[in-house]
């Protein structure tokens, strides 16, 4: 699966061009909430809808980055990254539920509404501590990370690769979905969590809070990008890419491929969890549907469309596909699934290196 080596000069120019493009893009995203403050009649006014939907896309871009780290660089095609995203979202959701406090419909001082409804007498032990923001943020990273550590350790140690690993991760998210749909799991069952009130003292329904979450997501995206960039350019990243292309050979050269892959997988899961945690307060709901295998595989296609194995590609793909989705699901809802299906076919058959590969081909 090695990517063709481009002539150095053209490659450097392209890289510079892509970076510059990305910089401008981030800048444009950065001024969006400011433009939202302009009067509605102003030609540069950006609607509330566009700001909130872009905030969502930024979270998706972080998810795409994390998936690209696993698939594009380590060769782990995870069909269960949606599970890490959702777990991060649930951890954040638990914090937000605790912050509702006595303002719920039933007005219980501690228990969230669904627990009162289901007849809980006290908080289950795994809900303790979630009233603290630092603890919740720790869990946002730790819970997906632990799951990835366990699944990854068992799988990589048994040398499960390729489609087997993909099916296994898909079964993982499917099992989690079934489990979270149960009412007695203590996670709100079918309905999940909603009716959030505030975060860090800010009421969530104000435009200031929305802008704050938007910027937090943007900062998280830039930081994740820089971490991934640093990592993939390092010696570790080179070994990871080598494992992707010829795992046995790297193992015979004396590298511990299991631990290399495990680190990438766990880091990737944590980034996905972070994306989910930023996503939930922006959309205002989290339910077990987020675990659905279709969500995870949709994230894979973002990366494929953008161009896997390139970090810019992952971000580009997430924005392109989701932009298309938002436009089509309102313009021609019946058509969207055809387009998505066709994207899968077209990208794998005709565009294996994605949009970035297309741009590269043009430049050369």
């Amino acid at each position, binding site marked *: 699966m090695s990517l063709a080596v481009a002539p150095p000069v053209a490659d450097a120019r392209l890289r510079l061009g892509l970076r510059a493009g990305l910089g401008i893009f981030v800048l444009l995203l950065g001024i969006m909430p400011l433009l939202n403050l302009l009067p509605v009649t102003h030609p540069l006014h950006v609607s509330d809808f566009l700001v909130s939907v872009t905030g969502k896309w930024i979270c998706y871009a972080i998810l795409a980055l994390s998936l690209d780290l696993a698939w594009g660089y380590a060769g782990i*095609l995870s069909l269960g990254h949606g599970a890490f995203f959702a777990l991060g979202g649930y951890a954040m959701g638990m914090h937000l539920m605790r912050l509702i406090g006595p303002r719920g419909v039933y007005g219980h001082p501690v228990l969230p509404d669904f627990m009162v409804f289901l007849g809980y007498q006290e908080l289950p032990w795994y809900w303790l501590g979630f009233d603290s923001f630092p603890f919740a943020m720790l869990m946002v990273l730790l819970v997906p990370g632990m799951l990835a550590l366990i699944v990854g350790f*068992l*799988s990589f*140690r*048994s*040398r*499960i690769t*390729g*489609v*087997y690993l*993909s*099916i*296994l991760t*898909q*079964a*993982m998210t*499917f*099992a989690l979905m*079934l*489990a979270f*749909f*149960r009412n007695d799991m203590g996670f709100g069952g079918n309905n999940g969590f909603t009716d959030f009130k505030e975060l860090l003292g800010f009421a969530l329904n104000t435009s200031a809070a929305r802008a704050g979450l938007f910027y937090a997501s943007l900062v998280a995206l830039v930081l994740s990008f820089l971490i991934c960039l640093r990592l993939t350019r390092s010696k570790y990243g080179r070994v990871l890419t080598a494992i992707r292309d010829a795992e046995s050979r790297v193992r015979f050269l004396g590298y511990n491929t299991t631990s290399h892959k495990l680190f990438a997988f766990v880091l990737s899961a944590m980034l996905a969890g972070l994306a989910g945690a930023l996503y939930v307060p922006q959309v205002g709901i989290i339910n077990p549907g987020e675990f659905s*295998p*279709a969500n995870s*595989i949709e994230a*894979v*296609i973002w990366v*494929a469309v953008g161009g896997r194995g390139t970090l810019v590609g992952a971000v580009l793909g997430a924005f392109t596909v989701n932009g298309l989705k938002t436009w089509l699901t309102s313009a021609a809802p*019946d058509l969207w*699934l*055809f387009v*998505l*299906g*066709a*994207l*899968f*076919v077209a*990208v*794998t*058959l005709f565009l*294996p290196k994605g949009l970035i590969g297309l741009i590269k081909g043009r430049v050369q």
Partner: protein
Amino acid sequence: MKHPVLILLLLCALALPARAQDAFTAGLTGLGTGFNQTAEAVDRLGASGDPRALPLLRALADGRLLRQADGTLLIRGDAGVQDALTNAAAEAAGAEPVRLNNRVRVALRGALGRLQLVSPDPADRQAAAEAVFRSRSAENVPLLDAALARETVPAIRARLALALAASRLMADDPQNKLLGVTALGATSSPEARAVLLEARATNPAIAAQIEEAVAAIDQRLAVRRAAETLFQGLSLGSVLLLAALGLAVTFGVMGVINMAHGEFVMLGAYTTFIVQEALRGIPMLAPWSLPLAVPAAFLVTAACGAAMERGLIRHLYGRPLETLLMTFGVGMMIQQSVRLAFGAQNREIISPPWMQGTLMLPGEIAVTQNRLWILVFSLVILGLTVAAIRFTRFGLEMRAVTQKRAIAASMGIRTGHMDALTFAFGSGIAGIAGVALSQIDNVSPNLGTGYIIDSFLVVVFGGVGSLAGTLVGAFGLGIINKILEPWAGAVLAKVFVLVAAMLFIQRKPRGLFAQKGRAAEA
């Protein structure tokens, strides 16, 4: 010697209806003249055992029995007023409803129960047997004995026997009681168990025998529960087997990962629906629509599979991850096409009569017919698949191509052609699975999505490339699932099975029936 007996029998036969008539008409005297007379008449009618007494007493209970001043009894029904004796239409002018008090009501309840026991309508007799069982009392014993002797329907006989045994338990003499205990202990019904436990408190003298009978029932119930769990597990296993069998060919034998497999199953189910609708107007063929749907579904999905292999998949050989994504996209498009063509709601597939209802196996083990048929069907399809791979020219060439492509090609086998045929074969089996699943699952566009993960786990769990492994994997996972269900709940049991299968695959990545030798290295 013979003649006098014959004549005697003949006389008896002639006399019987006449005597019954007498008892019925005689029983009517006094009905409606006063509460006590009415109650006595009701008792007499109940004892008469005449079938005509039943509608009359029912009318009385409902307040629809009228009495004219001259004593003629009329029944008011839906169609108008009729004479109670002659059934001729009559005028209700001047007639008054026969009045009831508590004494009459009590008499009515008993008489109706007795009459229902001998009613020509089996549903009546069933209801009566239930009623007598619930209001068990010793005086019903001779009545039940007589009813049991006449009864021919096995299900009602069983209920009557249960009622008789329970009534015996209420008798005063210990001999009769013991008879009842023994009879109840010989059944395997939870109701009998409850009756016995109730009787234990009031009959300390025979507590030991009761304990023994309860233990016997418990044992039989445990066996029955185990047998039913086993059947449910086998049934779930057969569903998994059907869903996974096509995948065992395309993924197991060919190594092509087809995420649109579930959609092929769904297409098979929709083919069943189309065949059913097409044959609806043809009375000769309509009852056979389900068997006819089997080859139709095979052909439809096999054609889809062949088109998909030639048009798309063959360009991605050697790139399994890309194949996975591409086929997922194709599945999405198939699903959306069906949704647009047929709508998102469930389509109704009518089960043929021979697949409906429940079959009672010895030991009162209830088995639903359609699940039994699907179990048999899945094994037949497995047998046919194995036979096709083992004993036909097609199977031989298929194995040759998958084992050593270059050698097979040099022997003159058109390998590309075989790839398409093999993929079409596997897809066709998925279509057949769809026909069977249409009987127990909702036929909707997302029918297939529920099966894809299970099918892959079954194939990988059993061992890729081994049909025996698929068989064992399917039934193993099915039975484990159903054993877990009673104490974990349906959803959690499924989660457990998924996790267990995942862990198992991590311990033994090559599955239960790992291929050995050169095939495993490929």
